[in-house]
């Protein structure tokens, strides 16, 4: 009623305010059409000097760095001109990640663990980016960068031990599956709290600069988590101290069920966040392994020469659910993945290698089989150490270790309590034999 709106607007002729609540273009059952996304042309963009002032390269925060074209050839100034062996390694790493994801997802469905997260469709953003860094550059990942660990040669069996929380798990069964840590591989312990790794990466980079070291830091975060205050803090500290750090934003369009509009994508790009801080910003085709590598290499060179931090938005698509606990058919169109205009990163790199005469379908099939076999072998080995909930976990007392460097009296008392409970529950087992029920 007109009378109501007059009351709502205070009886004046001022217009009633309206709240905008973002809504994704497509919901389940809708026909997805991404023709509104301007992806530009592969090879169209110039490659600015790595010492460029951020303000002089602001266009790169709004366009899309692409190398691999529709013709499967590498184009333009961003082509990193990698040799065929490196490209095959890159392809192999991505294929191994995908094979690993497939089997671990299945393992969760079979009850071998509680949880898993695939990175299907986003493999390039961790594998190719990770390969552009030095092996001792410190990475602060989010939860979907298993590609870095795999391309750094972390043993699959260690990953599976962690996923199964079994007695071989180096993290002693304390962390949710996939929350890896490997100091040896310069891979920071993953947190379940989002975006906390960003200021930490900046702090590590500041420390490296304080010490006159040569190593840089790189961190990964989803586009949804850029809404956290930690992201703002990280950008501020990174630019204030010109820290040698790369902030990678993986814009995979979806944060569980919330589309990127809830992190601000209706208004601007995520790469453009950099500009307000006076930071270099790049927006990159995240499904183009060569573009991903080239951008990370650009930022690494910049950081290593005291040129300062870079924020890179990798524009990609989360092809599957957020995790094993998620079913995306409940909130987005199943067509989206097929219609995604930037394709699949593994297919694109494979097609490129074939197009330049360095690969063929037979070798691809053999590689895929080899990846599946390696994962299967590692899985069998890891299962000897147990699966979640089947007894082969770490001894009870380890629950109380490492809370502090030394065990304080109150934790000693609580450890005794746990041991007592164990003896009451399972009186036939020797209390000190380690693996309990």
């Amino acid at each position: 009623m007109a009378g109501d709106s007059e009351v709502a607007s205070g009886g004046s002729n001022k217009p009633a305010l309206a709240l905008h609540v973002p809504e994704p273009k497509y919901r389940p059952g809708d026909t997805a059409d991404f023709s509104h996304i301007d992806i530009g042309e592969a090879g169209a963009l110039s490659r600015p000097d790595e010492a460029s002032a951020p303000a002089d390269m602001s266009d790169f925060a709004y366009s899309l760095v692409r190398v691999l074209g529709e013709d499967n050839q590498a184009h333009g100034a961003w082509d990193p001109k990698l040799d065929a062996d490196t490209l095959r390694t890159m392809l192999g790493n991505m294929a191994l990640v995908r094979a690993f994801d497939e089997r671990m997802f299945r393992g969760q469905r079979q009850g071998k663990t509680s949880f898993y997260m695939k990175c299907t469709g986003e493999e390039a953003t961790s594998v190719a980016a990770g390969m552009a860094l030095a092996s001792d550059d410190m990475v602060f990942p989010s939860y979907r960068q298993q590609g870095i660990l795999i391309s750094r040669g972390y043993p699959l069996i260690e990953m599976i031990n962690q996923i199964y929380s079994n007695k071989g798990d180096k993290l002693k069964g304390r962390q949710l599956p996939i929350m890896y840590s490997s100091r040896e591989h310069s891979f920071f312990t993953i947190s379940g709290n989002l975006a906390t790794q960003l200021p930490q990466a900046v702090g590590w980079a500041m420390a490296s600069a304080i010490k006159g070291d040569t190593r840089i830091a790189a961190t990964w975060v989803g586009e949804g988590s850029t809404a956290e205050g930690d992201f703002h803090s990280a950008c501020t500290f990174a630019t204030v101290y010109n820290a040698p750090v790369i902030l990678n934003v993986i814009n995979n369009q979806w944060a569980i069920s919330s589309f990127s509009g809830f992190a601000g994508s209706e208004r601007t790009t995520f790469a453009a966040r950099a500009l307000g801080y006076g930071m270099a910003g790049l927006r990159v085709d995240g499904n183009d392994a060569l573009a991903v590598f080239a951008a990370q290499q650009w930022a690494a060179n910049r950081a290593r020469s005291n040129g300062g931090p870079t924020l890179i938005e990798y524009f990609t698509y989360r092809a599957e659910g957020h995790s094993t606990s998620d079913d995306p058919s409940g909130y987005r169109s199943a067509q989206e993945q097929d219609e995604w205009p930037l394709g699949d990163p593994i297919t694109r790199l494979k097609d490129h290698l074939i197009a330049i005469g360095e690969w063929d379908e037979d070798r691809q099939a053999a590689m895929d089989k080899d990846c599946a076999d390696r994962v299967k072998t590692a899985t069998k080995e890891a299962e000897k150490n147990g699966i979640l909930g089947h007894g082969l976990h770490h001894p009870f007392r380890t629950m109380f270790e490492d809370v502090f460097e030394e065990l304080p009296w109150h934790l000693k008392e609580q450890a005794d309590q746990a041991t007592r409970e164990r003896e009451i529950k399972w009186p036939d087992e020797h209390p000190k034999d380690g693996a309990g029920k």
Partner: protein
Amino acid sequence: MSEPQVTQAPEAAGENAERRLNMIDAINDAMDIMLERDPDVIVMGEDVGYFGGVFRATAGLQEKHGKTRVFDTPISECGIIGVAVGMGAYGLRPVPEIQFADYIYPGLDQLVSEAARLRYRSATEFIAPMTVRSPFGGGIFGGQTHSQSPEAMFTHVSGLKTVIPATPYDAKGLLIAAIEDNDPVIFFEPKRIYNGPFSGYYDKPVEPWKKHKDSIVPEGYYRIPLGKARHVAQGEALTVLAYGTMVHVAEAVCANKGIDADILDLRTLVPLDIEAIEASVEKTGRCLIVHEATRTSGFGAELSALVTERCFYHLEAPVERVTGFDTPYPHSLEWAYFPGPVRIGEAIDKIMSE
């Protein structure tokens, strides 16, 4: 001895055992020594660099140790703690300052979910050996955003240590121990007693530290182990558990009332010196807990539970808590809020009458 003076620093430790410092200078001295001894120590925070801190705790440190060891930060507690976690992972030993304890909340996620959990979740691959210094407590007309005592929140977090000094001598030794500790330490500095001990009789002139025996702060390095309480006074009639400013207030009230109190300055809340507490309560049979923080779920609740669980058959009266009220810290009614001599005196009378 005649009136001790603050004198020029002698060359070696121990030569001038009578050097007197206030708490600010003792804290400054501790950081100075650790910056000198350990190249991995860095000091940072809002206004701590060139200016030397709003309470002057870092005065002169940047000039002496350089801009990459002692520096200002953006106004971002989340960022300060977050970068300190990363620095710790690198191998540094950061000593971030949070300008007021009341400002620490934006940094809580980085403290609670990150710093406190790194050692555990990475099975010792990464640690967060940081000491977060922060002035806390009221009594300076700071209003509700410059007076809070949030220590209980941190004691509730597994993986954090919480340290609160009550004298200049302790402030230096405890801060050095905290900086050397490989676990994250929350180091709350009772700002009401930065410049002198406080009896709680706010209408009386402020006593400077130089008249107090515990303002004797030796030159050079020394440490006081975390987790050890300090016996402020030996007595038979009543155990008093306190920390920070309230140690001095409780001491003054007991003296005024002529109570033969056994007063423990806890110094560290986590890890807690439970042995000292048990020994004292078993001796006196009566226990008073005093803190400035709000009452409900305050650390006094934990202390009361521990004493009751562990010393019940030695108790001759119920354990009493004297605390701040469960309101925000009011500006104009500060001294009505503060758990001063009247509130403490009433509680003592109640315990002693049982």
